[in-house]
């Protein structure tokens, strides 16, 4: 038995042991934890009292931890900035010339995917999803267009940069307004609706709208830079 097969066998055994341990942990976790005094229960309790949002993850991400979301978005902006600096001399599309069949498909599918992304963003507080996921869906619609049209399609860089910077400024402005008018950053300064309807989030929906716009523009810029590689 050679070394590589022995290594593979040992890794397989380790993985099996770890999965058995995970299953055993899942079995015992419910028995070990005290019933009420966990942070999840506390957050669910507070969420049911203070906000009218059906999806509790949304209210944790944008309302209780709004500053963390701001930090994540700025980290994303920094990474896009680095990619743009590194790949700024790129001209040629990596995946060859245009493709007629894919062009027809992209003409039909592009509005549908963008519409689905907008649905995910605006219904972030009712169903799974939110700003980041919807933004990436919109960006993958643009990836489809890049693949279909080759070198003959470029989204307007000014529009992308403008929407990205405007949504970032809007996000910061929303946080500062919460600090000024309310008691803390991203405080609830709008009126709430009834639980389960579309306009029930207040500030949470605005935050997700800005995050979605920003992520969509950034991911589109990132995929454009990646797909037009430097000539190797």
């Amino acid at each position, binding site marked *: 038995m050679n070394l590589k097969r022995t290594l593979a066998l040992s*890794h397989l055994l380790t993985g099996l042991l770890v999965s058995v341990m995970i299953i055993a942990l899942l079995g015992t976790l419910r028995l070990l934890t005290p019933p009420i005094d966990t942070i999840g229960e506390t957050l669910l309790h507070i969420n049911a009292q203070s906000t009218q949002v059906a999806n509790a993850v949304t209210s944790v991400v944008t309302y209780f931890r709004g500053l963390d979301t701001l930090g994540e978005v700025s980290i994303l902006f920094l990474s896009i900035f680095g990619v743009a600096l590194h790949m700024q001399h790129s001209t040629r599309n990596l995946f060859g010339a245009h493709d007629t069949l894919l062009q027809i498909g992209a003409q039909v599918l592009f509005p549908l995917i963008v519409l689905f992304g907008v649905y995910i963003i605006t219904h972030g507080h009712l169903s799974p*999803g939110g700003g980041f996921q919807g933004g990436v*869906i919109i960006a993958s619609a643009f990836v489809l267009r890049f693949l279909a049209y080759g070198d003959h399609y470029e989204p307007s860089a000014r529009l992308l940069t403008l929407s990205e910077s405007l949504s970032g400024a809007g996000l910061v402005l929303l946080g500062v307004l919460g600090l000024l008018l309310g008691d803390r950053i991203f405080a609830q300064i709008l009126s709430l609706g009834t639980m389960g309807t579309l306009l029930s989030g207040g500030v949470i929906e605005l935050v997700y709208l800005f995050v979605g716009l920003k992520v969509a523009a950034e991911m589109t810029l990132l995929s454009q830079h990646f797909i037009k590689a430097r000539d*190797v």
Partner: protein
Amino acid sequence: MIPFLIIATLLSLLAAAVMAIYSRDPAHSVLSYMGFGLGSTVLYLLFSAPDVALTEAVIGAGVGALVFVVALLQTQNKEQP
């Protein structure tokens, strides 16, 4: 039904991960990794975490695959002139 599905998904995730490590061609590794992402999406859903599952599905299918494929093209076309 659900615990059986969870155990089956965990075992197939294990197989996909071993395949992603031990295949010769990096393209096969990337494809196995994408299969791993698909399986872990189903796993997150079975653990009733739909937000995480949605993020994993969206990233793994669209932009993440683009980044991996571009990296493969750049490295492999550069190795053999």
